[in-house]
């Protein structure tokens, strides 16, 4: 049986790992390749590197990083952040990463999803979406998509956008709740469930993990196929191993 994936996320800036709290405050949490090796040994199912390097020039450090990671671990990993052209994708895949995650560029030019999934295959195109709750009444809830690292609202409805992403050929959705990201109060279960039920492609839940119960909720009530977390792993609140042991005990199928 297919297992649920536990994915540590590493924000990367100039070859170093940092973690954003509510997208603004950053804390240093160490070297990227060392982190990757550590998580590989701990039994992580995949890794995600989010490149938050601002300048295009310095992005080359990320390609070098992907290259080094691919040479040191034999585990699937994704790189995202600032990817806007087919060449960006090609460079990263050639450097050895398995998937790329696109966000702002996908919203600005949806045909980019189609072009890249046609060229490189759906399996390596992840579309990341940052959603914020805009309407919440007793019987209705709506979320809006934001771009540019959560700074710019787009007017796009999250569920409609998820369906569009799927129809354009993306192989997976990385869903971040902006309301919960950095809060450690848990994933947005309602958002995750609604998105996961709206599409047939796998959904990775992200944003808000503070304890292991949160991961459990996202994978069960939230119907996520995978959970992404950063701080709880980086700061060793929990190891990937104990996370999986916890989930297994509660009846979630995980790879141990």
């Amino acid at each position, binding site marked *: 049986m297919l297992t649920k994936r536990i994915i540590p996320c590493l924000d990367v800036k100039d070859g170093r790992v940092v973690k954003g709290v509510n997208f603004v405050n950053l804390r240093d949490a160490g070297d990227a390749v060392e982190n990757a090796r550590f998580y590989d040994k701990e039994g992580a199912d995949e890794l995600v590197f989010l490149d938050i390097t601002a300048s295009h020039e310095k992005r080359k450090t990320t390609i070098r990083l992907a290259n080094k990671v691919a040479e040191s671990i*034999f585990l699937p990993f994704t790189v995202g952040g600032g990817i806007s052209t087919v060449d960006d994708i090609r460079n990263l895949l050639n450097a*050895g990463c398995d998937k790329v995650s696109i966000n702002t560029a996908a919203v600005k030019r949806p045909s980019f999803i189609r072009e890249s999934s046609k060229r490189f295959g759906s399996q390596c195109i992840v579309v990341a979406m940052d959603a914020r709750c805009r309407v919440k009444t007793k019987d209705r809830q709506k979320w809006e998509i934001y771009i540019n690292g959560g700074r710019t609202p787009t007017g796009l409805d999250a569920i409609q956008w998820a369906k569009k992403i799927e129809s354009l050929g993306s192989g*997976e959705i990385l869903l971040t709740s902006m309301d919960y990201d950095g809060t450690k109060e848990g994933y947005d279960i309602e958002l995750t469930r609604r998105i996961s039920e709206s599409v047939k492609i796998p959904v990775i839940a992200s944003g808000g993990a503070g304890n292991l119960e949160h991961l459990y909720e996202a994978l069960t009530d939230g119907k996520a196929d995978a959970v992404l977390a950063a701080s709880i792993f980086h700061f060793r609140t929990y190891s990937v191993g104990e996370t999986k042991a916890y989930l297994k005990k509660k009846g979630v199928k995980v790879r141990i």
Partner: protein
Amino acid sequence: MIVVIDYGMGNLHSVRKALEVVGAGAKVSSSAKDILRADKIVFPGVGSFGEAMKELKKRKLVQPIKDAIAEGKPFLGLCLGLQLLFERSEEAPGVKGLGVLKGEVKRFKLKGLKVPHMGWNSIKNKRSDIFDKVPDNSYMYFVHSYYVKPKDKKVVLSTTSYGIDFASGVCKDNVYAFQFHPEKSQALGLKILKNFVEL
């Protein structure tokens, strides 16, 4: 010499690197000469069946691959490299595959299950040298929307369950092929590659 066939379908860096880690230098090549000279061949690939056959034809690699297999060279197909060994695929109606193995490639049509089948799933192994020290029910990393349906069930080397039980590994004479990615499946995946190298 091990040759990793490069036909423009996906990154071969990790396959080459993984082979190196298990003790075999490999040459990534798209030359028919190299393929015919190789001691062993690895045939990886991700992307679509139709595109891949087009690229193989463009590089004039279809016949050399078939010849190398017919000569009995140990051959390892991975992911799309498994699917291309079959006669045809629902992904590209009308496109002929390599036809080394009889049968077809079908799309997952499963109610309530996500496609692509993506992540870690277990394999039920038959006994084989390629699975030496790879226990039954080992987890391997998969990412695919299509699966192979061999006509001859005897070629099935491992099965995996995702809504249905499908062939995640096949073997016929000198040809081994897997739907999963051993080069991305940590220690047990690397063990399979090592076993292939040592065949």
